[in-house]
């Protein structure tokens, strides 16, 4: 197997994201995740630039890389022009490709995201729509959302939308032609492959953990497990 580090360097975002780090910690200082998680972008950059295979593998299997919120504040401030958040994206990509992501609680969540956002994108051409924000799964959306959710078409259309109908406007149905092209693009560019990879490793993990797993979301215990599991061990 190729050296992990070489795999990282293959990705332009990695080359863009990390030249020599001087360990000043400015990224961590401006990082929202560092404040609430046992997370330190500086340490990650330092670890990665150490090229220590063993350590990098451990990192890919850890919760650590999944804490980042991708706000990119680190990129703005780094005095060496690095972008730790980009490095994270590449680490995550690798963790998924190598199936390491299922080793950590936060990593396993990729399954849930893939089953929601991932499927939305290729099936309806939206990341989210009203009907996908099910109040049960989004208690914080509050009563106004419940009202909105129940009267979606009435409200959306009053607000100039075109709720799940042909033609332009907010929340219209995205034409089949577009959907087909999206799906083709996903196949050609590895999007589908990644999705399947996540699916595949997650199923293995589910079996390993002996948690029932099925292709639907409803009544899929593994989905609920990764969607809600929180060890609360994410702060030191």
């Amino acid at each position: 197997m190729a050296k992990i580090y070489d795999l990282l360097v293959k990705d332009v975002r990695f080359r863009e994201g990390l030249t020599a780090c001087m360990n000043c910690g400015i990224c961590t200082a401006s990082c929202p995740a560092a404040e609430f998680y046992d997370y330190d972008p500086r340490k990650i950059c330092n670890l990665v630039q150490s090229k220590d295979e063993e350590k990098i593998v451990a990192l890919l299997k850890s919760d650590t890389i999944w804490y980042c919120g991708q706000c990119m504040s680190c990129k703005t401030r780094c005095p060496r022009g690095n972008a730790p958040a980009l490095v994270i994206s590449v680490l995550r990509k690798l963790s998924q490709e190598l199936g390491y992501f299922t080793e950590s609680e936060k990593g396993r969540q990729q399954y849930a995201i893939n089953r929601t956002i991932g499927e939305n994108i290729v099936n309806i051409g939206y990341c989210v729509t009203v009907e996908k924000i099910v109040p049960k799964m989004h208690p914080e959306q509050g009563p106004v959302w419940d009202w909105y959710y129940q009267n979606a078409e009435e409200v959306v259309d009053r607000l100039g939308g075109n709720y799940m109908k042909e033609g332009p406007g907010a929340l219209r149905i995205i034409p089949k032609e577009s959907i087909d092209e999206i799906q083709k693009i996903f196949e050609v560019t590895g999007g589908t492959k990644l999705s399947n990879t996540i699916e595949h490793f997650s199923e293995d993990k589910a079996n390993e953990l002996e948690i029932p797993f099925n292709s639907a979301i409803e009544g899929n215990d593994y989905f609920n497990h990764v969607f809600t599991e929180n060890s609360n061990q994410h702060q030191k």
Partner: protein
Amino acid sequence: MSGKKIIIIGGGPAGLEAASHLARQNYQVTILEKESETGGHIKNDMTLFPDFADAQEVRKGLSDRANHPNIELKTGICINELVQEGNQWRIKSDNNEAITGDAVLLATGFEPFDARRKEELGYGIYNNIITSVDFETKLKEGKILTTEGNIPQRIAFLNCVGSRDEKTGNNYCSRVCCVNGVKLAISFKELYPAAEAYFFYIDMRMNGQQYEELYRTSQEKYGVTYIRGRISEAAATFDHKIQLKSEDTLAGLPLKLTVDMLVLLVGIESSKSTRLLAGQNNIRGNYGFAESLGVNRNDYQTTKEGLFLAGTCKRPLSFQETIADAGAAAIQIMDYLEKVK
């Protein structure tokens, strides 16, 4: 012996020191200073590191030595052209006065980094965020007070402002900010022993005699708290304090601190006139500093015969280094003038 004439551009420490050496060897020296007074940046200083020597006393010593029959001093004169004609050098000033000489010493010094270029640090936008230069001025006035007129109970010094920073285009280390910052922190604690002083740094580069000791004294005797980490942003709080965010990279944890005053230890940049004159003579090096034949080959001569360099027009130097540098440059000039007939 010789009536050879040397023009020194810049009446700062380097210029004055070189001039006094040359004058004593019976060379005719003309010092051109853009400001109304000589002394350069130490005019603004209260003390000099690492021994807290009285800056104004030192400055007086310099100008006294440069007060010599062979030295002609022209102040308030701004150069906008420097050209070589044969083995003569001609200088045109903004009032079109032309001055010629056999050799020219570029001693055009440096400019402190303009802290406004680090937006996230809020200099000029929020009250009570000042630079080391402002701080030194306040020291000279004898008191450090917040805009609200109070004694700061908590002060923070931030190192490497405009140095070691790709975002400002300055990848180099300004070399003096560390020790100067320590000096300022000590001076502050001398004034207000009860107040707390914090010092944010990446590395403490105590690369000079007595520097490291000064650093240690500031910890042991004055209780300055050093935090290894770079401040990512400064913001004013509702009660007119400054909120700072950094990582304590030694603890590996993000750190928040609210202070009454933030001092930015600004780095050293090439001065406008250095950039201009070095540019005109194709000796403009990195970051707009003037380029010698090489730090190891000959750090005083340039590719232009008769055009010499001294002091911080070349790169960041401490005061004492500048003085030594100027002396060496003077000798090189004499050698040169001996050779050319």
